[in-house]
Every structure is written in structure tokens, then in C-alpha cells.
């Protein structure tokens, strides 16, 4: 009995609940051995797992019929912590600049607003700064100067990794809003927060507007696809 073999637990006959002792058939095959070792609650839970496994994953219906139930997974503080850590890491890695999303597919008709609405890095530039001295020279992507300015301008718009949840969810809300009914109270909340965010952005744009070669703020180039969420300029209008 060594290693991490989960089935090799020691047990005493006296620990068995009396019900099981009465039902004990002669042979000790594996399926019954581990059943006998557990308390009744856990036994019932395992039976639940087993039927759940059979129902959901259709375990045992494949090439090899499953004769014995799988041993329960290790639970407890360590197991749960590592599990939570794993899921958190997965989420975190998606937000890092190393996660390269494929380019947004071109729309059917090119629109003027496309020029001012960039969702990803321009000209395949990298979002992070590797140490170019360590990499082969051929990997360095030449970025044109004009567009380099653009990257710095649009950086504030793209939320950095450590942005608050509010801002992220606001963006999500904007895109998903048109799918669901709106509740007036939540709308007001959103408007307030959008305003805050827009204010921040606008202040940052103030200094850089003249470099953009346009007299309009970015929300001017909204092509109406996010209708209903961006009317922060006209707070006095009634919302229907």
C-alpha cells in the first residue's frame, strides 16, 4: 500500500455500518470493497455521482463497458484551492497581451468609421514590449510612425489588464444590451458610469485630438450598431 493509490485505505470491520455487514456477499470484488469503506452519506453521494455520470456523460456505454465505478476525486482544501487557481489562471491568461486573437473579419462594405474604430492592434503590432536584444532581428515588426501614434492614442480605449470590472462590464453591456429588455433603473446606472468613463476618455483625448486629424470625438464615429447605449451627449432626451 504505497504511492498515491487512492483505493488503498485501511479499514476495520467494526467501522462498517451494520446494514452493509448483513448484505455482505461472499466475494470481495473491487466494486464493493471501496463502498464498504465509506460512511453512508458518502456512499449515497457516490451513487449519485455514478448515476449522474451515467446520465450526463453516458459513461460505460462506449467501446468498453465500465464494470467498476471510478474512485472519487480527492476533495478538501488543497484540491479546491488548486482547482480555483486553475480556473483563475485560465481566465487571466486570456486577458494578457500574449493571447493573440485572430483579426476581426472584414465587413461586407468598408465604412468610414472603421478608420477610427480599431478593436485590435494596428498593423499587427505587438501589445507588449519584448526585449528585442534577445530575439532574432527578423522577428521585429516594423511599425509605421503615424500608426505608432495611433497605438498610443488608442491604448487608453482598450482597457488594460488591471482595469476595474466596471469598465469591462460596461463594454459588455453595450454590446449585449440590444438583446435584452431594458430596466429603467439599470439603464440610469449604466448611463452614469458610461458618462464617467467617457469623461476620462475625453480628457485624455483632449490633448491628442489634433493629432487625430479630425475635429470630432471618437463617439462621433459610432456607426449606430450600438444604438441605445451611447446617447450620453443628450441626457435631456427622454428614453423610450
Amino acid at each position, binding site marked *: 500500500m504505497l504511492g498515491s493509490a487512492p483505493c488503498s485505505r485501511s479499514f476495520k470491520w467494526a467501522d462498517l455500518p451494520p446494514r452493509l455487514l448483513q448484505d455482505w456477499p461472499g466475494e470481495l470484488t473491487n466494486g464493493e470493497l471501496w463502498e464498504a469503506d465509506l460512511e453512508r452519506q458518502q456512499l449515497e453521494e457516490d451513487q449519485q455521482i455514478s448515476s449522474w455520470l451515467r446520465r*450526463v456523460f453516458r459513461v460505460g456505454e462506449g467501446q468498453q463497458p465500465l464494470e467498476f465505478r471510478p474512485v472519487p476525486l480527492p476533495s478538501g482544501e488543497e484540491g479546491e484551492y488548486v482547482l480555483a487557481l486553475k480556473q483563475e489562471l485560465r481566465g487571466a491568461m486570456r486577458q494578457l497581451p500574449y493571447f493573440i486573437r485572430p483579426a476581426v473579419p472584414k465587413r461586407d462594405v468598408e465604412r468610414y468609421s472603421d478608420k477610427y474604430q480599431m478593436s485590435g492592434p494596428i498593423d499587427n503590432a505587438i501589445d507588449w514590449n519584448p526585449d528585442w536584444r534577445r530575439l532574432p532581428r527578423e522577428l521585429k515588426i516594423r511599425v509605421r510612425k503615424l500608426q505608432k501614434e495611433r497605438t498610443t492614442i488608442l491604448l487608453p480605449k482598450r482597457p488594460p489588464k488591471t482595469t476595474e470590472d466596471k469598465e469591462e462590464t460596461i463594454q459588455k453591456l453595450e454590446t449585449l444590451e440590444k438583446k435584452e429588455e431594458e430596466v429603467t433603473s439599470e439603464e440610469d446606472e449604466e448611463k452614469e458610469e458610461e458618462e464617467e468613463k467617457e469623461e476620462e476618455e475625453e480628457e485624455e483625448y483632449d490633448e491628442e485630438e489634433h493629432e487625430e486629424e479630425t475635429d470630432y470625438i471618437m463617439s462621433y464615429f459610432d456607426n449606430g450598431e450600438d444604438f441605445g447605449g451611447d446617447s450620453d451627449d443628450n441626457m435631456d432626451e427622454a428614453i423610450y
Partner: protein
Amino acid sequence: MTQAEIKLCSLLLQEHFGEIVEKIGVHLIRTGSQPLRVIAHDTGTSLDQVKKALCVLIQHNLVIYQVHKRGVVEYEAQCSRVLRMLRYPRYIYTAKTLYSDTGELIVEELLLNGKMAMSAVVKKVADRLTETMEDGKTMDYAEVSNTFVRLADTHFVQRCPLVPATENSDPGPPPPAPTLVISEKDMYLVPKLSLIGKGKRRRSSDEDATGEPKAKRPKHTTDNKEPIPDDGIYWQANLDRFHQHFRDQGIVSAVANRMDQFTFQTQTSSEIVRTMLRMSEITTSSSAPFTQPLSSNEIFRSLPVGYNISKQVLDQYLTLLADDPLEFVGKSGDSGGGMYVINLHKALGSLATATLESVIQERFGSRCARIFRLVLQKKHLEQKQVEDFAMIPAKEAKDMLYKMLSENFISLQEIPKTPDHAPSRTFYLYTVNILSAARMLLHRCYKSVANLIERRQFETKENKRLLEKSQRVEAIIASMQATGAEEAQLQEIEEMITAPERQQLETLKRNVNKLDACEIQVDETIFLLESYIESTVKRQ
């Protein structure tokens, strides 16, 4: 690389870095070393995308490059390193148990970013720790630095190979790619930095000390303009050292399971073995078959402070351990009160064998396991002998043997009596070849993990709409709570998710958690088997 490994690598890369990096990475794993243009041509991706992907892969130590003649740079992927991504949570948790939250965050930052400079790590970790502390408290850089130094001293983090200092007298054009070098003694050398400062909070609701307006929050890019004192010195997590730690943990728990159940004093033998392993941590390389010999006197002196066993008792335990048929501990001499070594290779072999036995027991039943252990012990057995020794009826024994044979746990050895190999005049002996059985099981493990990941992704995709909806509702509730809303309004929002939908979400969450937990569990088995196979192959 087997198909199963490639498939698993593909899934891991896609989950962590996206499809473009996955395409390039898998292509390199399949085809070996290739230059940039060939990769772009063969995969059909644009040159820029390939460059981006390669930068990410090199940053994370998954791809290395080499300059060949005529200035061509070729890129090679490291498949085994990609598979390590499965084990990241375990590394981070180990760091937490050894060096608490600070260590945990340091290792996490290093793993998520591939390689980082020490000053950058310290700053980031201090900021993150400050976030979690109470209002008004901050984390000092010095404390984080200390933990970093300790991690380096115990070899858990190591320096990346460096760009060699360029000589100004070099007349030729600069090489297309630098050749990175690192010397053994420099690998754990921490540069003398005086990092002074405290972590900063990110919350904009706090009043900044300098009273800057919200909009003029400093952007990340401005920080890079200051010269970093340890420029060019990058650190990475030393995965081999973690593996050594896991291996030690496995051996100690094996000894505990075997020996310490029957003693009154809790865990003495495992403590002794743990002490011996700790003493050999730095002196023995991780791939050595056994540790350096340690004298009984040394061990006695190095036992943890709380242990009050006498010298004679220690000697008795050591003799007991050395005589044990598992041969974890061996006696190599008599000087100094007895010289003892830990047989690392044998220990790994025992652990791998135990894993195989456990798999057979769970899959086929305890009778099959009995037969397997029998054949393992007796090395070669005929059909009749198996039935006799195992005390199992002939029909059942035959059935079980053939089942295990078909799954390649057991193999058949033919010994002909006559030169014409006639079947009636040939001995057929059942035997267990642990190395090949371990390889087969490892292959199955890779397939299992790939299946688990795919199933998890499928489950998530099926319920994508529902997940998005629930995330949105949570966000709305959170923002409403933050700005103070009435109970009735919150109730109304919560009801946007109907009861059956809630049930569905519950089920989804439970399924995903189970699948994740399974992945972690299978990875532990993968580690054991890989360690054993590596140790065996090195000895041949």
C-alpha cells in the same frame, strides 16, 4: 511526438494563447526545426502573424531559435515544455506552501509572463499584494525582494541565458540572432538591487497621495522610460527544481503510507526520509540514481528541532528502512555510524509500479490486480503456474490474463523448444515489462487529458449564451450594489435568470469543476510516469 501529445499541446496552446499561436506552435512541433518564411508558407498565415506568434512562444520558453550557416535562423518547439503548462497550478500552489502568498505571486507572475526582470516582478507582486491588504496598508518592496532571493537561493527560480556583452571591436555586421549563454555559477546569482518602495493600489476611488486628477492616471508606458537597474537580466521559474520537490514529496508520502501506519510515533520514518532528502537537495542533481551517502550522525544532527528520538532509535529506523524490500533507502557503508543513501531510481520505479497496479485494480478488479502483482514478482510465469499461484480458477485466470494482454499491461514471451517454433512445442510466458507498460499508460493519460479538455470546452460552448447572460446580470447587480440600490430592484434583476436556467448553470458549474479536478489528478499520474521513464532512459 505521438499524436496524443500533439493533440494535447494543441489544446493547451489554444486555451492559453489563442488560435494563431496554436497553429504555429503545432506546426513547429510536427515538423521540427524550420525558418521563418517556411513556417509562414506552410501554415498559410501572414508573415506578421507568424512573427507575433513566435515572439510569444519564445517569451514563454516554448520555442528556441538557432542560427545556422548562411545566417538562417531556425525555430524549434519544445513539446515537453508545452505539456508543462498543465502543471502551472501545481507549481504555484507548491510555492504558496513553501513561501506563502508572496512566493505564490512571484512564481505566478514568472509563469504567466515567461520571463521577467527581478525589479519588474517585485513591483508587480507588491502592487498585487497591496490590493488585497486592508486600507492604508501597503506591501514593502524589501519583503518581496527577500522572498525572491530565497526562491533563487533554493533554486526555484533561475536566470535566463544572457545576451553576451558585445565587443566594440567587432567589425562585421551584427548577427541575425544573439547566441544566449549562461554559466552554471551565475544561474542563481541575484543582482544587487536596492529596490525601495511600496506597492500601489489601483483603485481610483482612493485619493492619490499626490492628488492627481483621475484622468491623468499614469499610463503603463511611462514607467518604461526609467532605466531599470537590472536591465537584461531575466528570471524564469525553474521547473526541474519543482519536479524534484514533487518527487521528494511522493517518496516521503510513500514511506509514510508504508511504514508509519504501524508505529505509535507519528511519521517518524517519513520524517527521517524527508530530512535525508532535504540534505541532498542541492548536492545531488535531479537525475542522479541515488543521493550522496549520508552518515547516521549527520542525519541525527539535521533532524528537525522538535524530534526527540535518541540515536539508537534513529539507527533502528534506518536499519528498518534499509531492510525493507522496497529498497527506498540503502546502506552503502559503515563509517560515521552507517552511511545511507536514498535510491531515487528504485523509488520512482516503485511509485510507477504502484500506479500501474492501482490502475489495473480500478479497471479490472482486485483479482486481476492479484495476478498482475504475481507476474511482476515472479518475472515470468506460464499459464498453468499463474492459475496455481494465484488460486484462481483456470477459466477466470485465462480471461483476465487475456484482458490485460489486450491492453498491453502484460506481454507474452515465447521460448521455443524446437527450431521450427511450433506452437505446441513452445513455452509462452507471461511477463510484465514496466517500462513499456508505463509508456503505454502515459500515452493513455495524454489522451485522457485531451478528452477532458475537449469535453470541458464543449460544455462551455453549449451554454455560452446562458453564461454570458449570467455574467451580465452579475455585473449589473455588482454595479447596482456599489452605487447603492434597493433590495426590490436587486431582486428584480436576479429574477432575470429563471429557475431552470439557474439549475442549468449549477449543473454546468459542477461539470466543469469535476472535469478540471480530473485534469489535475491525471497530471499527477503523468508526472510520476514521466519521471520514472526519464530516470530509466537516462540510466541506459
